[in-house]
């Protein structure tokens, strides 16, 4: 059985380019008294710049990285096996806890996989509302990332505080709608848990047009032209496009390397075909491009939300009489993916006809984007590895699961 929407073919010719040889560690052959030995540093798991409990075993020659070994698993919670012990509905709140900065898109990816497995149609209004909430999650995630990346650069909390201030406003709206700021648990098979009130949409629209637009302008003026930021990020942690493709990198990180691949455009899932948004593409694949991808994607997401609010049709927010509790799909398997804020988030489900999934597998963008970390860090200084890790945008809840 070939489930729909599982084509992995890349969209452009450049995405098919063969992988270049991996960067070879430049280890000195001679260790004299003047230069000394190589130094191995265990960075983390409680280092504040590693965004959680992540460890990097870095081998240093002076200040330059010659080898880097990522160590993860400190936050392993057995997510996949827990989901295999529970009903299909009960896995939705667990998906919130994968990438806890953008729980709405995690919900969406999982719910889409189950809908594909069972064959549930989603009403048009629900699809529009899902797009609004998904793009809101993307904005929240990117606003957060820009702040944390600058924090990693050493700008002690100023840009982060401005970012979090705006994020809190959006989280207030999310809380009002879903009941929780981060653990939204709002998507259901066939639609959403509740309808979105018109005045909520108006307030979101007003906020994005006013407060958030001001934030974007200010953040741009504060950071984008800043000479220190340019010196610290340009030509740091370059990821060549061929390596990015062969390593399976996705999301803004892949596009920063110059590969035009956005699942919203490639798969045209949901109703994204109706939205004429642009996908920013980088040129150098360095930290600055990865930062700029996030800055440029935010206005595009705002535009999508504004268009969706304008065109929002009336109708059902969930397929009428759709069963959510005690769902028993027929025997089969499926893989469904969406473009999350961090990259391709996908769910592979295998059903054996019972009320629990036989196999439940998450394809986490953070973990797979992290696999290219060593290639980006070799030859850079230790202080730069912090910036490179920050620009990858990982959430340990998703890396370790």
């Amino acid at each position, binding site marked *: 059985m070939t489930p729909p929407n599982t084509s992995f073919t890349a969209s452009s010719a450049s995405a098919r380019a063969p992988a270049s040889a991996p960067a070879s560690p430049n280890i000195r052959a001679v260790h004299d008294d003047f230069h000394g030995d190589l130094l191995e540093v265990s960075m983390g798991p409680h280092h504040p710049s590693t965004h959680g409990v992540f460890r990097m075993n870095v081998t240093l020659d002076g200040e330059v990285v010659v080898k880097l070994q990522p160590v993860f698993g400190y936050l392993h919670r057995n997510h996949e096996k827990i989901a295999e012990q*529970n*009903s299909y*509905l*009960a*896995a*939705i*709140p*667990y998906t*919130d806890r994968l990438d806890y900065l953008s729980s709405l898109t995690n919900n969406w990816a999982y719910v889409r996989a189950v809908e594909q497995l069972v064959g549930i149609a989603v009403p048009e209004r629900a699809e529009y509302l899902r797009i609004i909430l998904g793009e809101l999650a993307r904005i929240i995630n990117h606003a957060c990332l820009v702040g944390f990346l600058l924090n990693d650069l050493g700008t002690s909390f*100023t840009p982060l505080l*401005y970012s979090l*201030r705006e994020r*809190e*406003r959006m989280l207030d709206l999310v*809380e*009002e*709608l*879903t*009941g*929780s700021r981060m*653990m939204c*648990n709002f998507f259901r098979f066939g639609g959403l*848990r509740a309808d979105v009130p018109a005045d909520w949409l108006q307030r979101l629209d007003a906020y994005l047009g006013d*407060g958030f637009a001001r934030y974007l302008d*200010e953040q741009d*003026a*504060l*950071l*984008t*032209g*800043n*000479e*220190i*930021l*340019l010196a610290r990020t340009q030509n740091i942690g370059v990821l060549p496009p061929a390596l990015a493709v062969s390593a399976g990198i996705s999301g803004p990180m892949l596009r920063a390397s110059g590969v035009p691949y956005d699942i919203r455009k490639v798969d045209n899932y949901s109703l994204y075909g109706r939205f004429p948004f642009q996908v920013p593409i980088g040129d150098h694949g360095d930290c600055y491009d990865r930062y700029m991808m996030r800055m440029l994607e935010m206005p595009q997401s705002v535009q999508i939300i504004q268009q969706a609010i304008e065109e929002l049709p009336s109708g059902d927010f969930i397929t009428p009489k759709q069963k*959510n*509790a*005690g769902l028993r799909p027929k025997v089969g398997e499926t893989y469904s993916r969406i473009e999350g804020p961090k990259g391709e988030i996908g769910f592979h489900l295998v059903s054996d006809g019972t009320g629990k999934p036989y196999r439940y597998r998450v394809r986490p963008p953070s973990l797979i984007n992290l696999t290219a970390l060593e290639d980006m860090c070799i030859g850079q200084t230790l202080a730069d590895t912090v910036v490179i890790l920050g620009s990858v945008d990982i959430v340990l809840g998703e890396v370790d699961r």
Partner: protein
Amino acid sequence: MLGTGILKGLFITAKNLVGSYYDKERLTTLQYPEEAANIPENYRNFPFLVFDGEDAVSTLRCVACKMCEKECPPQCIYIVSEKDEKGKIMRRPKVFDIDISVCMGCGICAEVCPSSAIKMDHIFEVTAKDRFSDLLLHRDQLAKSVDYYKQIHPTDFAVEEKARAEKKRVAEEKAQAAAAATAAKAAAAAKTATAATPKTDVAKAATATAAV
């Protein structure tokens, strides 16, 4: 020119610093616990059980159907139905425990409950001296009055009451229709019976007219 980007940035931070003295948009700090945060109605934290009347145990809405126990993602609900002396299951819980040290506040229990008996609370300042015994809440600790529910979820309460009234009205109409149908059937039966003996019918009609 080198340094213009930094100067531009410093201008932004200065604007924010000055703005924080008079612009509410730029200083959003709330002095908790002196100032209370505005909790939206949809906010959810831990579940509680709703009872309708005065007595928490006898008027509990819960019928111990165990839907929430089955669907609870972290499996933190434990229910035992009450049985009468003959061993027949009564429709109310004898034991209803929620371990709120395990509960993740997802609200699925409230969503799947067919009798609107379990709802999500607004309490977020929960403290306990013992993390094992004090965080395992029993039926009597979980039961809260319907007035409390009405107070924290006014919109949901109104919608539910409306649905309930509608259901009641439909049920009553159905009962009335059923009664009418039975009456009609009886009348029809009576008619067939009378059709068989038209003489009596005429006689009856005559009596009826006479009576009028």
